[in-house]
Structures are given as C-alpha cells and as structure tokens.
C-alpha cells in the first residue's frame, strides 16, 4: 500500500504537441508529494513545466479540457474525480499516467 505522505516519482506520458511545448520527451517523471491523484499529478506537472498550465485543464475551472483524456493501467480515468487516488501502479511508477489528445477524424 502506498502511503499518502510519501514522495512518488510518477511517470506521465504527454501527447506530441505538449511535449513540444514543454521541450520534453515522450515521458516525464514527476515527483509528487502526498496522495497521487489526477490533481496532485497535474499540479506537480504544471509546477515543473509552467508552459503546460492551462493546456490540460481549463485555467478558469481547473477541469479537464474536453478533448483531453486521462488513461492508466488500460483504463479511461477521464471521468474520475480529480481527487480520487490513481492506481497504485501509477503511484509506484510501474505504469504511466497517460495524457492523451482526442483523435480528430474526418
């Protein structure tokens, strides 16, 4: 069991445009203190890469942008509450937290 007060190195995979914007590779490792949730991971991500602020979550509402999805451990977590704990496999760094841009067909 992951303890809430621990610092965790969480792996985050970003879509191509956000990798360009943050000048990073496909995956980044983010130190997250306390419980590992969507909010704490994204707060830590934006703190480390300020250019990503507002690109994943709306600035005014702090809600996930409609065309952005969150996947982990082969599950769509996009509709989970932002303060719900992410799977232990994400908190322990075994699995990445995936930020995905919705596909645009046509």
């Amino acid at each position, binding site marked *: 069991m992951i303890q809430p007060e621990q610092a965790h190195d969480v792996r985050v995979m970003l879509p191509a445009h956000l990798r360009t914007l943050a000048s990073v590779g496909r995956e980044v490792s983010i130190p997250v203190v306390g419980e590992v949730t969507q909010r704490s991971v994204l707060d830590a991500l934006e703190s480390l890469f300020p250019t990503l602020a507002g690109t994943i979550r709306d600035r005014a509402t702090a809600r996930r*942008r409609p065309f952005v999805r969150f996947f982990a451990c082969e599950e769509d977590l996009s509709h989970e509450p932002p303060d719900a704990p992410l799977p232990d496999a994400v908190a322990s760094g075994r699995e990445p937290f995936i930020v995905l841009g919705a596909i645009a067909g046509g």
Partner: protein
Amino acid sequence: MSGVRLLVGTRKGAFVLTSDGSRRAWSIEGPHFAGWEIYHLKGSPSDPDRIYASQSSSWFGQVVHRSDDGGRTWQTVGNDFSYAGETGTHQWFDGTPHPWEFARVWHFEPSLDDPDTVYAGVEDAAIFRSTDGGISWTELAGLRGNDTGPRWQPGAGGMAVHTVVLDPSDPGRMFVAISAAGVFRSDDAGESWRPMNKGLRSEFMPEPEAEVGHCVHRIAQHPTRPDTLFMQKHWDVMRSDDAGASWYEVSGDLPSDFGFPIDVHAHEPDTVYVVPITSDSVHYPPDGKLRVYRSRSGGGEWEPLAEGLPRANCYTNVLRDAMDVDHLDPCGVYFGTTGGEVYGSADGGDHWTAIAEHLPAVLSVEVQDVA
C-alpha cells in the same frame, strides 16, 4: 534599402515571409509552431523584433508566444486570461444568460510606443492588457462591464473582440470591434467604453438599428486622419468621420458588400481596400473570381483589382485579419486566403503576385517594415 516582413498565421503554424524593398523575391521561413493553429501574430511598431503570437487549439487551449528577434526564436509567455471581478453573463443562443468563458485570443495589438505593452482581444468578448511583454494579463473590465454587456450575443463564429485600434493622435482613445455586438470606443485608455454603432443597420436583428448586436467584421483607420474609420460589416461597407459617433454606408458599386477584411493605403487616407465575397452563406468571391476592390474616394466608387489574381475557379475566402499594407513607396498591399495563398502587390494593388502558395489556410497577415 528597407525591407518588408510578413507575419502569416495559419491553421497549421506560422510563417515569416521577407523581402527587400523591391518586393520581388520572397523567402519563406517556417512553419513555426508546426501543427498548431496560429490565430494572429503582430509585431510592435516601436520594436519590430518584438512579435506576439496567439496559438490556439481546441485540444490544449490558449498559448501565447513572444519573439524578441524578429520571429527567429520564440518563448512561451503568459496564458492566464482570467476575467476580472464578477464574471457576469451575456446572452446565449437561446436567449438565456450565459457566463463569460474565455476561449482564445483573436487579436494582439501592441502599443504604439512600448514593446512590452500589448492588448489582446479575446473570445468571449473582452480586452486584456499586458505591460510586461505578455507574461501577465489584466482585463480592462470596463468593456465587458458596459451597460450593454448582458445583451451581447455570439454569432456562429463566436463572440470575440477581433479588432483593436489604437488612436495615434490620442493615447487615451481606443476602438474595439466585437462580433456580434459592434464597435466600442474608450477615451480614457480602456477604463470605460461606449457603444459606437449609430447608423449601422443589420437586418438579421429584430431591431435593425439597435444600439448593440451588429456583426462588425473589421474596422480600419489611417493614422493621419484618426477620426475617419472604415468598416466592413456583415453586409455593408461603412464609414465614420466623427470617430465612430455615426456611420454611413459607402458600399456604392461593389459587387457584394459582404466580406471580412478592410484596410487603408499607407499614404492615401481615402484609398481603401476590401475583398468582397458572395454572401453571408457563400463565403467565396463572386463568380469564382478573386478580386480586391479599391476605392480612391473614401468609399462609394470602387474599382476591381484583378491583375495577377485568379480570374476563375477560385473559391477561397480572405479572413478579417488577413490583409495589411506596408509603408514603402509605392505602398504594398498583401492578403492571405483560406486556400493557403499569400498575394502581394508592390504598387498599391495594380498588379498582384502569389508570394506564397500551398500554405495551410491563412488566418492572419500582418506587415512589418524592417531595416
């Protein structure tokens, strides 16, 4: 010899086109921000190396970039466009009150004398100012807080401040145009605003001459005659000679008075350019012939300029911020199309050449005079 730099925003990136003063040969650099929609780029009049770029995406929202070296390199600056104070409501499509929601920056207007000061016209309609080179933004909330604000309503294209005009003769005077609310003027550097729509008539409104609700597409001013404004409206080309207090129609003999861009010759304040398209429901040139129309009499009488432009089978559009002029002599005129062409004329519109082709759809063209 001085030169010209065109800042071209497209659906899939930004391009920088440069030429010497002859304006015969052009180099194309880009795409910058490849794959991103670049709504608008504009350089500072007081420091041409300072350029602001609005990058917008349905996926990842608003990003703002700044260049300090004429567009060669860029840094990401602030994108926090939080409305000031009480958010308030405007009218939604169904007539119900709807809270203001920031969507994107449509237009940057750098200050005339300070490269670190820049105005942003945004959707939902509001104007912001930065005095630190785009790092932080503060709303000039008197515009949205105008008495008429709760009655503003979006058109199908969104409700945006898309035009910002800074009066060179009076630092306190500014104009904005909003689709679909109309023109507003401030005489106190953006603190308070008044609607300036008397004389506009819009048949799509239940009260065609209402104080607000007009879908103004763009306004343009010549710096030496700041009280005269030209307007391309959603139908009708209009003119004001009293700083927007009243407007009269100058569509005259245009084949269609529907279009988006309007601009004024750099040296002749009565020479005006528009690009008519067929109608509000058919957004391409009449008969598939791409023509700029020029009036040398401040409107009313217009002549088609077709030399070098497609004479048939052209079904592109020219968007509101996609035309501009340089300040060389003779004056150069430039515009970009939704088909990805950028056309230029080095003789005030008499002859045109395609200076870029096969770009993504062009959203904006801004001209810089460079050393």
